[in-house]
């Protein structure tokens, strides 16, 4: 394939040749001849490579492969197919030359744009001997959740002057999944008031037969003598009994707003990023507590993960969160109408949304509260993200902030535990704020 350089030299040579004949100038013709010879020689014997001489990058492949690349193959191995945000994936690319000729190759293993090369390089210029192989190792850092694919491998050979090149895409792909990052939660203060009998019961925030201390109260007739707190009796002179938390399993419903508006703000700092991280952390926490956790994400469709318990459920939820794309604009009311008949009364519901561009938020959350659901809203403020990124000026910010505060106050008036989650706030702090602790 001709490079820009060879095309320009070729055109120059033709022009000089014709001009030389017209002007009867043998110098011009001689220069043209020398250029022609240069080009011919490079085209005939140009099976070896140099880098970037054509000014074209390896990704601009247009499909001319040639014999010299037919014997080159690649294989790739990843250190892990599932990682968490900010995690690293080690990549080992094995390049093989099956031909009897040594080659100087320019190899570029294509990495998704959002990823950073942490160690090594995915763009290599190398000499690969006859019937030899080499291993290229590099590490990519994955700062954002999602489904990703590595590949294809672009290979190029050029003549030493970069006049002609041959390119090939080796269609070797490796998929991997980046889960949202999780925060360790010590205590979330979210517990159901309605017991649900299951094996492996855990505490809910109501007194009852259980093992964890809940509070002290005065002794009533019929109370077991074993539950009398003698130290408290000694202090107060009244018979006091220990109350314990009732052991039970709660159903936790996580609702993640993944509408187009949730991605407002910088790529790495927006409401959707925060919401998915929070949902992952909460899912891990509740599942660790043996609660049953369900997930609903809404964008241009409502996607739900049925309530379940255990480690497998965590992976199902994490996979759904990894694939949550910001699109569409389904109102929360639609989600509420759809899930209301299917969730147990009194189940804690945690909504993760920036509360923007949805006029049904108030009525949707009112519906939940009217049925006595314990609703917690964590609202990552994309106003702050945009203000920090200097995309919003002070006046606009103040106006919108006021509107947001009004909305939050209104929701709080409905009995919703709500927290305006600012960018630098830890999830546990935001949760504690929402629950009024």
């Amino acid at each position, binding site marked *: 394939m001709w490079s820009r*350089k060879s095309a320009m030299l070729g055109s120059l040579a033709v022009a000089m040749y014709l001009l030389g004949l017209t002007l009867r100038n043998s*110098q011009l013709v001689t220069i043209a001849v020398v250029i022609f010879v240069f080009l011919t020689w490079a085209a005939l014997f140009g099976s070896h490579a140099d880098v970037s001489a054509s000014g074209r990058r390896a990704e601009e492949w247009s499909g001319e492969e040639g014999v010299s690349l037919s014997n080159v193959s690649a294989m790739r191995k990843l250190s892990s197919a599932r990682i968490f945000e900010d995690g690293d994936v080690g990549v080992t690319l094995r390049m093989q030359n099956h031909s009897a000729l040594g080659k100087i190759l320019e190899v570029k293993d294509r990495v998704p744009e959002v990823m950073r090369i942490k160690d090594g390089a995915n763009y290599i210029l190398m000499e690969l001997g006859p019937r030899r192989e080499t291993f290229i190792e590099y590490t990519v850092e994955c700062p954002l959740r999602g489904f990703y694919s590595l590949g294809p491998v672009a290979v190029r050979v050029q003549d030493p002057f970069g006049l002609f090149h041959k390119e090939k895409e080796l269609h070797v792909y490796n998929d991997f999944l980046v889960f949202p990052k999780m925060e360790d939660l010590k205590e979330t203060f979210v517990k159901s008031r309605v017991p649900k009998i299951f094996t492996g019961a855990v505490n809910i925030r109501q007194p009852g037969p259980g093992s964890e201390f809940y509070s002290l109260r005065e002794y009533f007739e019929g109370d077991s003598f074993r539950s009398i707190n003698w130290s408290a009796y000694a202090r107060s002179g009244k018979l006091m009994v220990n109350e314990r938390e009732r052991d039970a399993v709660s159903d936790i419903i996580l609702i993640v707003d993944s509408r187009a508006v949730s991605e407002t703000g910088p790529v790495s700092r927006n409401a959707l990023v925060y919401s998915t991280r929070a949902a992952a952390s909460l899912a891990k926490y509740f599942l660790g507590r043996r609660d049953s956790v369900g997930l609903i994400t809404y964008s241009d469709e409502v996607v739900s993960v049925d309530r379940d318990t255990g480690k497998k459920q965590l992976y199902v939820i994490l996979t759904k969160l990894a694939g949550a794309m910001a699109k569409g604009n389904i109102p929360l009311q639609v989600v509420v109408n759809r899930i209301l008949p299917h969730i147990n009364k009194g189940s804690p519901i945690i909504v993760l949304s920036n509360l923007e561009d949805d006029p049904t938020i108030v009525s949707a959350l009112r519906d939940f509260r009217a049925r006595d659901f314990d609703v917690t809203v964590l609202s990552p403020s994309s106003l702050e993200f945009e203000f920090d990124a200097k995309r919003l*000026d002070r006046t606009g910010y103040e106006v919108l902030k006021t509107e947001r505060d009004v909305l939050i106050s209104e929701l709080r008036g409905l009995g919703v535990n709500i927290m305006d989650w600012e960018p630098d706030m830890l999830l546990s702090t935001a949760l504690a704020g929402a629950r009024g602790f």
Partner: protein
Amino acid sequence: MAMKSGDTAHLYDGKTVRSAAPSRKKLAGTASSTGEIPKDAIPTVEIPTFIESLLGGPLVPKMKFLPADKMVQNLQLGCYGVLIALGILTYIVTPAVGTLWFAITGSMAAANILQLMVVVGAVGTGFWGTMSRDARFMLTSYVLFIVSVMRFASSKVSLSQDLFGFGDSQFMLTVLVVIYAVLLVMYFELSNGVLRFSMLDTSIRTREVYVMNVKKIIGKYHRSLVINPIIAGSLAMLVLSVNTILPAFVSLFSEQTALRMEESVELISVYGVALGTLFVFLIVGGLFALDLPTHLQSWRENKD
């Protein structure tokens, strides 16, 4: 949309405050104290200039080169050397007679001065372009060199300075012109190489590219810098010696015709050169038409 500073009433007009916050994507473009649209809210669209689209990319590379390494410095030195030799040869093989300046001024002295200025300009911009690794100056230098050689010349090569009496020997004249042409092409390549290897070196040092066995790769380039000019020069000599090769071939059949051909003005003129070129490249074209390079490559790839 001009708005008074600090007046935000317009933002509430027709809106129910208790509803959800309005889309800030929309407001980012409108709400500001001055009413101006923030720069960030406007997507940037880069449209290449005419020159950029002609060259397929920016003339001035956006990549800033790191200080030249040894390889680049060597190339720069080589380029300076070639440039000096080329400047001298250009001046010798392109006398002012027949130049555009001579046609305009009609004065030999003025044409000489102008031609000298063009050559000096070509060398000067070449030097500066190579030293500062700036493609714009290099391109100017290329253009000036080509302009300097554009003359209405007689078919025979003439020299502006003939200190060594090369003008008397047709063979030496041919050699001189071939060396001049090879040097010009070498200058194109070396100056281009300075930019390419600066890019490569910067990419290596910024860890964009990893190079395994740099010496071997550079060695290949160095070898090519020696071999290619020799081959190009030899083949060009072959093409330009058509007035001796053709008669030698014809002499096998007719001595008389061969002698006449040898003395033919046309054959030693530019048309003879053109004829030789045509012959050589007809053969080369034939080889390519038969896809010989691919067969050759295929054979070399698969041999045990």
